[in-house]
């Protein structure tokens, strides 16, 4: 059973939802698919039904406004639905979706990918300890459940996210033991010219930092968490000062805490783009491997459009505008007309992108951070493979992520390599004396998320089984 649309949008964050709305307003029949219960993406994630009432935030207000617009539009939202396979077809695209335990097929002339980002977390000794969560993961807890990661939390990582997370913990009544960030104050000052273009965000960030100072929360600039204590629960962390290249060189200092939020920048979630046939190239300034996309959302494949952080990390403000531009381009494609030039929107996008990319530049980990890993530090969480396992495989001749994956199962576990491939690429590059840009991630393979066998099997009738020509005897 398949449903036919002009455009299918994958992802309902600022980019996807705005693309969907723009295309729908242009008269296209649009379906939008998203894993979450409501549109908003990670940045404007909606509250779970647990929250009956709560003070609003800039994120909740932006998200509510977007959800309101989607609700009033003709966009058909497939919520709590997971895209697991993308195929090009004669008529356009076939999108296979898991919804309520069943497979639904959507067919569309144009496909817009707005799959956003995921977090890169630098492995350090003890990072698998329960009680260590991603910085981005922490924001999901705040936004959907208004819940805290623990009683007393160390918040550690790069870029602006570390201050947002610390601030949200305080807003929700928690205690921040310390903020630990590899960035120096000087790096932030250097980003100032890009930040003044968004005075609203600049003021907000300054407030977070000022509040932490007033509250006496220690901020460790140019530091990183080097080790997490605790077997089955976090009992504290050891931090160390870093060099300019972010390699640890200072004396270890212990901080007592029952939880740690840890993250080192965002990276484009590009698996869907790979499945749709797009090549990836390495762009450190955009957070890593990403497909080639222009400001109008066009890609190298006909009928395939892409917007938001999945095209390179430029932040929510840029994603929102990129979504609108892409919605226009895709709807023009569907109607068979040339897309109009929207110079004002283009300019706004470039402005927002400059700000976002300045934040990305602060967030992207430097090489030295790798040396926080010890030989027995787990790199692949699914298969419990350590740095020494990976390095031994590389030294035995595995020169690509594909070879390391095949030889060790690093990337064959349930997460599909989403949390180990970045580190493995770096370890290979280091061993070869090359650059990460020479070590692409392995081939993307469906399903994009684990899919229940029962859902794939569906209502199978044995007699419907096509009997093939017997194999030659």
């Amino acid at each position, binding site marked *: 059973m398949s449903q036919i649309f002009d455009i299918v949008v994958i992802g309902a964050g600022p980019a996807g939802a705005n693309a969907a709305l723009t295309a729908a307003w242009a008269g296209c029949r649009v379906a939008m698919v998203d*894993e979450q219960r409501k549109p908003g993406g*990670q940045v404007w994630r909606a509250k*779970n*039904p*647990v*929250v*009956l*009432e*709560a*003070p609003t935030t800039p994120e909740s207000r932006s998200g509510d406004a977007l959800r309101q617009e989607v609700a009033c539009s003709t966009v058909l939202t497939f919520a709590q639905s997971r895209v697991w396979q993308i195929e090009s077809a004669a008529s356009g695209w076939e999108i296979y979706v898991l919804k309520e335990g069943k497979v639904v097929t959507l067919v569309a002339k144009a496909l817009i990918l707005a799959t956003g980002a*995921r*977090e890169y977390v630098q492995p350090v000794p003890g990072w*698998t*300890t*329960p*009680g*260590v*969560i*991603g910085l*981005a*993961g*922490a924001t*999901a*807890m705040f936004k*959907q*459940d*208004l*819940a805290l*990661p*623990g009683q007393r939390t160390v918040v550690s990582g790069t870029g602006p996210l570390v201050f947002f997370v610390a*601030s949200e913990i*305080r*807003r*929700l*009544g928690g205690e921040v033991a310390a903020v630990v960030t590899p960035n120096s104050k000087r790096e932030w000052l250097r980003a100032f010219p890009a930040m003044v273009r968004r005075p609203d965000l600049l003021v907000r960030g300054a*407030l*977070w930092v*000022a*509040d932490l100072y*007033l*509250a006496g929360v220690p901020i460790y600039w140019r530091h990183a968490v080097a080790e997490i204590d605790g*077997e*089955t*629960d*976090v009992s504290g962390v050891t931090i160390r000062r870093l060099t300019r290249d972010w390699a640890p060189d200072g004396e270890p200092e212990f901080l007592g805490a029952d939880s740690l939020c840890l993250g080192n920048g965002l990276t484009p979630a590009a698996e869907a783009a790979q499945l749709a046939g797009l090549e990836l190239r390495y762009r450190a300034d955009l957070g890593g491997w990403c497909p080639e996309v222009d400001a109008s959302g066009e890609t190298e494949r006909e009928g395939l459009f892409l917007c938001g952080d999945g095209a390179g990390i430029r932040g929510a403000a840029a994603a929102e505008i990129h979504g609108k531009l892409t919605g226009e381009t895709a709807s023009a494609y569907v109607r068979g007309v040339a897309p109009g030039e929207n110079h004002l929107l283009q300019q706004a996008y470039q402005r927002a992108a400059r700000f976002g990319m300045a934040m990305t530049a602060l967030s992207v980990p430097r090489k030295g951070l790798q040396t926080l890993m010890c030989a027995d530090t*787990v790199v692949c*969480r*699914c*298969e*419990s493979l350590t740095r020494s396992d990976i390095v031994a495989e590389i030294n035995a001749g595995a020169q690509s992520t594909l070879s390391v994956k095949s030889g060790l199962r690093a990337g064959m*576990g*349930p*997460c599909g390599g*989403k*949390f180990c491939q970045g580190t493995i690429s770096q370890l290979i590059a280091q061993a070869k004396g090359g650059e990460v840009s020479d070590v692409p991630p392995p081939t993307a393979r469906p399903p994009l*998320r*684990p899919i*229940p066998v029962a859902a794939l099997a569906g209502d199978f009738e044995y007699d419907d089984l096509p009997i093939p020509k017997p194999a030659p005897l």
Partner: protein
Amino acid sequence: MIRLVPNHAARVQRARSVTFTFDDEAISGFVGETVATALQRGGHRLLRHAPEDGGARGAFCCMGLCQECLVQVGGRPVESCRLLVSADLTVTSLKRGAQSQ
């Protein structure tokens, strides 16, 4: 003490509290929050042991990617960061020694 970031904790209203079962233990949680959130509040951060080395694992990415917070409901694997608390929910962990359903 001056706070530039206000404390909103007291202004959050949540749905009613219920109990659900986690490995035969009654856990209290609010209806409609994620099971991962309720479990961590209840002191259950350890959700499973890694299959290869038995390493302790708990919720990590909190957005349905990493699969670290996997639990079982009705014998099927479910991401506890995406599963919502409801009364009478019975959750089994993938800890070593936990009873598979």
